[in-house]
């Protein structure tokens, strides 16, 4: 039963991250501006690299979550990404920045840090649960 729940959660997580990546991949300039607004990276080249790389990493890991063979690795990468996202959101919240999340492309009129961080924490727990106990096929 737990295995079935884990598999279902992994597929849902995979679909969600494929959607999140695809929403950003079509407009890298927009995502670049979203990352810039966090004011975390003083190196423009690093922000440009992230604007192109992060959406594809989300898509690749989203696909990885769907296939059992790659689930463990994909869930750990996604968990790592979510920890970074939560940290960035918390810092922006603490600094009182009026920015868009940039999480699923698009924009929001007012920041909803509490909601965004809560959602990412739930996704982090889901990623870790979905990827756990999947080591039997590794090796």
């Amino acid at each position, binding site marked *: 039963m737990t295995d079935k729940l884990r598999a279902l959660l992994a597929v849902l997580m995979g679909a969600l991250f494929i959607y999140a990546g695809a929403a950003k991949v079509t407009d890298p300039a927009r995502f670049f*501006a979203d990352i810039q607004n966090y004011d975390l990276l003083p190196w423009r080249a690093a922000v440009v690299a992230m604007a*192109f*790389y992060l*959406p*594809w990493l989300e898509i*690749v890991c989203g696909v990885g979550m769907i296939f059992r063979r790659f689930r463990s690795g*994909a869930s750990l*990468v996604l968990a790592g990404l979510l920890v970074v996202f939560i940290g960035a959101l918390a810092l922006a919240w603490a600094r009182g920045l009026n920015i868009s999340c940039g999480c699923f492309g698009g924009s929001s009129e007012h920041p909803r840090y509490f909601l965004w961080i809560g959602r990412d924490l739930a996704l982090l727990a889901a990623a870790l649960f979905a990827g756990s106990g999947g*080591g039997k096929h*590794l090796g």
Partner: protein
Amino acid sequence: MSAGPGSPPMKPLARQIALLLALAAIPAGASALVCWKRGQWDAFIDHSVPLSEIVAASQPVLWVDARSKVEYAVAHIPGALLLNEDDWDDLLPKVLETWQPGNVVVVYCSSQSCHTSEEVAQRLSKEVGLPGVQFLRGGWEAWKGAHK
């Protein structure tokens, strides 16, 4: 570090993670290349102007401070006018009243990593139609550093 029973072996897991990270780099690189080929790279280029270049120019400069009201109240470049996106409609008329043809408008925010000056400069240029609007590289920190 050894893996416990039921947990994935470390080496294949690390290999899997490395593979996923590398796989993502391929379409990312391709997408950057496509962007470059289509001439859509302008959004990623730094158009800020260094302070030395602004000082060297002979044209009169209208400084625009894109930071918050509080930061502006603490200190600002002499003669600078406050204009940020939070109070855009209230603050813009003063800037337009002060602006003279021939002025070079230079917008600044707090530091190298802030980007509000770029956004305000873009709005002044595209929405308001002011000519030759620039934004200062390094912002207020660069100015402070040069005027110690």
